């Protein structure tokens, strides 16, 4: 492998990403042990990778919607005319929560920050067992949630219940969306205590919602 080939083929990046065949890997190694410029580039990139691995290992997990999670705003199933009344009522509640709680909290955040993520996937839906999450007061955190999807339901609603009777809708999901892990941002504000994400299923438009699961967790504030 000569210098131009190494540069043009992005051999440095491919090498660190483990994408070179054994033959190309050996050819690139033979090259960078003899090419001062490629050696310097590899040193730069490998130090970046090494330092990133060390830094990220200690950093909170950033909140990013995985590609396969589709935001509920893309779901139009609640626009079905037969479903309009309860759907619009929930929409009004949701908009109210967004305007009076979520958006003001977001505006308070003047600098980008990473969101601490927890998994609610092992949550027990029965009994007293609940997961405990320690968070910074006033800071939002994220939850990975699996909806207990059932083929008899065509759509699902998620609602958050918290201390002092707090209750707020989270999102609606189609049956297809419910197959995938959801990422939900929780704004506990100053409310530490017991929470639950209540999952309800609707078998058909116009039918009542049936509670399927209560994914319980407790929020405590780090002092």
């Amino acid at each position, binding site marked *: 492998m000569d210098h131009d080939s190494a540069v043009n083929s*992005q051999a440095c990046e491919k090498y660190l990403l483990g994408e070179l065949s054994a033959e190309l890997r050996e050819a690139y190694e033979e090259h960078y042990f003899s090419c001062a410029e490629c050696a310097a580039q590899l040193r730069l990139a490998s130090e970046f990778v090494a330092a990133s691995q060390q830094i990220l*290992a200690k950093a909170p997990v950033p909140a*990013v919607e995985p590609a396969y999670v589709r935001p509920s705003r893309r779901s139009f199933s609640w626009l079905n005319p037969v479903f309009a009344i309860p759907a619009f009522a929930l929409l009004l509640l949701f908009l109210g929560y967004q305007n009076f709680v979520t958006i003001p909290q977001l505006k308070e955040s003047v600098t980008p920050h990473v969101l601490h993520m927890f998994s609610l996937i092992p949550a027990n839906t029965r009994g007293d067992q609940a997961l405990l999450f320690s968070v910074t007061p006033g800071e939002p955190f994220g939850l990975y949630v699996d909806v207990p999807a059932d083929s008899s339901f065509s759509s699902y609603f998620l609602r958050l219940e918290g201390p002092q009777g707090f209750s707020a809708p989270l999102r609606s999901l189609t049956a297809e969306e419910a197959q995938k892990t959801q990422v939900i941002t929780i704004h506990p504000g100053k409310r530490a205590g017991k929470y639950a994400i209540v999952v309800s299923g609707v078998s058909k438009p116009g039918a009542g919602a049936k509670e399927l699961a209560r994914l319980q967790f407790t929020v405590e504030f780090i002092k």
Partner: protein
Amino acid sequence: MLELFSFDEAYVGRLREGDPSTERHFVAYFSHFIQVKLRARFLAPEIVDDLKQETFARVIGSLRAQGGIRQPDRLGPFVNSVCNNVLLEHFRSAARSVPLAPDHLEIPDKILNLETLAISEETRRNVREVLAQLPERDQAILRAMFLDEMTKDEVCSRFGVTRDYLRVLLHRAKGKFRQAIEN
């Protein structure tokens, strides 16, 4: 830090004579590349250390042997060649003691784990700055690649990106890191 170093006869001569500062530079310079090379085979850190030490011992021994290295500017490829021999002996020895699975030569589709490389605090500071400038999504992609031990196919599927995107992301981050150092 972005060192472009070439080896000459004087350097090899000092190394052969055991000059302490030249030896320190030699070990520091090649340690990094030998570790990256060995980690590219997904060897455990303790094995990497053993093989690295063996490589250095053989290179120094060869330098001091009668004849030594005939072309000083080929010191780098000589180190690589000795490391390859050490690796080959290691795999042969391992094969004798532990039956190798049919896919033992296949490299996992993951980024190299370089977490055990010695990194200066200044480098960590610069990298922290670079990471903070990246969009949250790119930070999450790097986290998934670096820490979550996901294969690159899993990362691409999870974040809806292509393999090219991963390479470009690393390339851009490397460029930002270089700028941070030069500034």
